[in-house]
C-alpha cells in the first residue's frame, strides 16, 4: 500500500470518529466519550497530515526544520486555545464559541489563500507531477477555482461576523449602540452583489486581485450582516456562524482535495443549520426575518397602559412565606441569570426549598440566553442535576399545578402576549406558560422591556408579584429568609 493510501486510511478513521462523536452527543454520559473520540480523530488527522507528500518533500529538501516550524505553530495555537478554554468563565460561553468560530473561518480562508499563492508560484518550477497538475488547476471554472472562491468568501464572512458577534456578546462599548442605518439593506445588497461578481471573477480567472477584493468585501459583509442583529437573536447568529465555519472547512477540503476536511466540514455545517432551524422555530421567526428584518420594535401597546396601577411589588418576607407553603416550585431562568451570575444562588434557594420537601424544577425555553442550551450549561455549573431541567413542551402542561413560578432574568419567553395578542411583534412565539401558575414571582431590576421592546402583561397579572432587585442579591435574601423561619 502506498503511503498516500495509509494517509487516506487515517483520514477515513478520523472521519468515522467524528461521526461517532456527533452520535454520542445524544446523552450527557456518552457525550464525554464522544468529545474524546472527536479529539482522537483530530489527533489522527493531524498526524496523518504531517506525512503528506508536500510536507515530506520539504523535509527531504530542508531537513527537520519545516516540521519543527509546523509543530511550533501548532503547539502555540493549541496552548492558547487550551488556556482560553480552561480560564474562560461559563457565563461567557457564547462569546468564546463566537471567537473560536471566527478563528476556524479565518483558518479556512488562509488555507485557500496559501494554496492559491503556492499554486501560482509552483508553476515556475515544473518539478513534479503534482505541481504540473497544480498549474493546470489554475484553469478557469475548475473545482480549484470555485472552491478557492467559496472558501475565501465563507471564511471571511465567518471571521468578521464572529468578531462582531463576540463584541456584542462581550458588551464592548463600541458595539453598545445598535446599527440602525436606514439604508443598511441597500448596503448589504450592494456588498452582496459585489461579492457575487468578485466570486464570478475568481471562478473565471483565479486572479489574486479578485481574490483579495473578495476577502475584503466578504469581510465588510460579515460586519454589516451581524451588526444590526442583537440580544435574543444571538443564538441564531451563533448557530449560523458555526455552520459557516464548517462549510468554509469543507470548501477548503475541495481546494486541496481532502476528504476529511469535506466530511468534518459538512458535519459541522449540518449541525449548525439544524440548530439554526430549531432556534428560529423556537422564536416563531423565519431565518430571513432574523437576518434582515430586525424586530418591529414600534410596539402599538403602551407600557403605562399595561402596567398602570396593576403592578404589585412584594417584600422578601412575604415571598419567603409564599415559598414555604408551596409544594411545587418551577424556576424559569433567562439571560439575566447569566448576567447576574446567579446560578449558584439559584441552586442554594432550591436546596433550602427541597430540604423542606418542596419539589423544585427548572423550565428551560429553547432560546433562553444567548446561545442554544446556554441555561443548561449555567445550571449544570451549579451542580443542578439535569433531570430537574425540563424542556418547554414537557413542562408547559404542568404550570396549572404549580404553586409558585419564579422568573429570573427572563422576559419575552414568558410574555403571554405571544399567545393572546395577535398584533404583538412576538405573536405566535412559543412561550413558557408561567402565567398559569398559582403565583408568579418575577425577580427583575425594573420594568424595562426585554429584547422585543414590548411591555409584558405578565408583570401586571393578578397572580404576579414583582421583586425589584438584582437577581443574585434577591435570591440570596430569599434563601436567607426561608432558612430563618
Amino acid at each position, binding site marked *: 500500500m502506498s503511503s498516500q493510501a495509509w494517509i487516506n486510511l487515517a483520514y477515513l478513521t478520523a472521519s468515522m470518529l*467524528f461521526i461517532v462523536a*456527533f452520535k454520542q*452527543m445524544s*446523552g450527557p454520559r456518552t*457525550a*464525554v466519550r464522544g*468529545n474524546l473520540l472527536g479529539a482522537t*480523530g*483530530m489527533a489522527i488527522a*493531524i498526524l496523518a*497530515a504531517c506525512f*503528506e507528500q*508536500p510536507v515530506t*518533500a*520539504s523535509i527531504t529538501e530542508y531537513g527537520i526544520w519545516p516540521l519543527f*516550524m509546523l509543530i511550533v505553530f*501548532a503547539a502555540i*495555537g493549541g496552548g492558547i486555545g487550551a488556556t*482560553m*478554554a480552561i480560564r474562560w468563565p461559563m457565563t461567557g*460561553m457564547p462569546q*468564546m*464559541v463566537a471567537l*473560536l468560530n471566527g*478563528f476556524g473561518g479565518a483558518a*479556512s480562508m488562509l*488555507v485557500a489563500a*496559501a494554496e492559491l*499563492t503556492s499554486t*501560482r508560484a509552483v*508553476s*515556475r*518550477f*515544473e518539478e513534479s507531477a503534482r505541481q*504540473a497538475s497544480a498549474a*493546470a488547476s489554475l*484553469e478557469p471554472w475548475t473545482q480549484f477555482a*470555485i472552491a478557492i472562491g467559496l472558501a475565501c468568501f465563507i471564511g471571511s464572512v465567518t471571521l468578521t461576523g464572529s468578531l462582531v458577534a463576540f463584541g456584542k456578546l462581550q458588551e464592548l462599548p463600541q458595539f453598545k449602540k445598535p446599527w440602525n442605518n436606514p439604508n443598511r439593506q441597500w448596503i448589504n445588497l450592494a456588498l452582496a452583489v459585489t461579492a457575487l461578481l468578485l466570486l464570478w471573477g475568481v471562478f473565471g480567472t483565479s486572479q*489574486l486581485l479578485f481574490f483579495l477584493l473578495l476577502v475584503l468585501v466578504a469581510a465588510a459583509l460579515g460586519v454589516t450582516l451581524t451588526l444590526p442583529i442583537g440580544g435574543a437573536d444571538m443564538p441564531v447568529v451563533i*448557530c449560523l456562524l458555526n455552520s459557516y*465555519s*464548517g462549510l468554509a472547512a*469543507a470548501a*477548503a477540503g475541495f481546494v*486541496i482535495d481532502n*476528504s476529511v*476536511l*469535506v*466530511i468534518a*466540514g459538512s*458535519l459541522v455545517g*449540518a*449541525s449548525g443549520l*439544524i440548530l439554526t432551524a*430549531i432556534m428560529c422555530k423556537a422564536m416563531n421567526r423565519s431565518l430571513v426575518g432574523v437576518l434582515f428584518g430586525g424586530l418591529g420594535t414600534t410596539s402599538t401597546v403602551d407600557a403605562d397602559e399595561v402596567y398602570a396601577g396593576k403592578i404589585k411589588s412584594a417584600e422578601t418576607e412575604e415571598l419567603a412565606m409564599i415559598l414555604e407553603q408551596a409544594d411545587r416550585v418551577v424556576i424559569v431562568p433567562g439571560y439575566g441569570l447569566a448576567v447576574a451570575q446567579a446560578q449558584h444562588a439559584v441552586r442554594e434557594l432550591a436546596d433550602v426549598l427541597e430540604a423542606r420537601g418542596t419539589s423544585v424544577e427548572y423550565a*428551560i425555553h429553547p432560546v433562553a440566553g444567548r446561545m*442554544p442550551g446556554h441555561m*443548561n*450549561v449555567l445550571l449544570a455549573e451549579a*451542580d443542578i442535576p439535569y433531570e430537574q431541567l425540563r424542556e418547554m413542551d414537557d413542562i408547559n402542561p404542568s404550570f396549572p399545578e404549580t404553586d409558585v413560578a419564579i422568573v429570573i432574568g427572563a422576559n419575552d419567553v414568558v410574555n403571554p402576549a405571544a399567545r393572546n395578542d395577535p398584533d404583538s411583534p412576538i405573536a405566535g412565539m412559543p412561550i413558557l406558560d408561567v402565567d398559569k401558575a398559582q403565583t408568579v414571582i418575577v425577580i427583575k431590576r425594573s420594568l424595562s422591556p426585554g429584547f422585543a421592546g414590548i411591555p409584558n402583561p405578565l408583570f401586571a397579572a393578578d397572580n404576579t408579584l414583582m421583586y425589584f432587585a438584582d437577581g443574585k442579591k434577591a435570591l440570596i435574601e430569599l434563601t436567607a429568609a426561608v432558612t430563618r423561619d
Partner: protein
Amino acid sequence: MNIILLANALPLFAATPTPTEDPASTFIRLLTVFLLAMWVGFEVITKVPQRLHTPLTSGSNAISGVTVVGALVVAGSLTTGFGTLFGLLAILLAMINVAGGFVVTHRMLAMFNPKKK
C-alpha cells in the same frame, strides 16, 4: 498591494497537465462525499437533546478546526513566502479553534456529570 504585484509578476509556466483524474470527476467525487456527510450529519444531530446544544455547538466548533489538516499541508510545502506564511497563520488559528473547542466542551460536559461523592 505588494502581494498582488508579486503574484502577478510571476510568469505562468504553461506546464503540460498530467492529471490522474479529470477535474470534473474530482469535483463530483468530493461533492458525493460532501452530500452524504451532510445527510449523516442531519440524521445524527437531530437526535441531540436541547440540554446538550451548547456542548454540541462548541464540540462541532472544535471539529470545524479540522481545516488545520489543510493548513499543515499548505504550510509544509514551503513553496512561497506568502503561501507558507498564510499556512502557518492558519495552523495557529485552527489549533486555537481545535484545542479551545475540545477542552471547553470537556469542561462543560464534566459539569453535566457531577462526580458522585
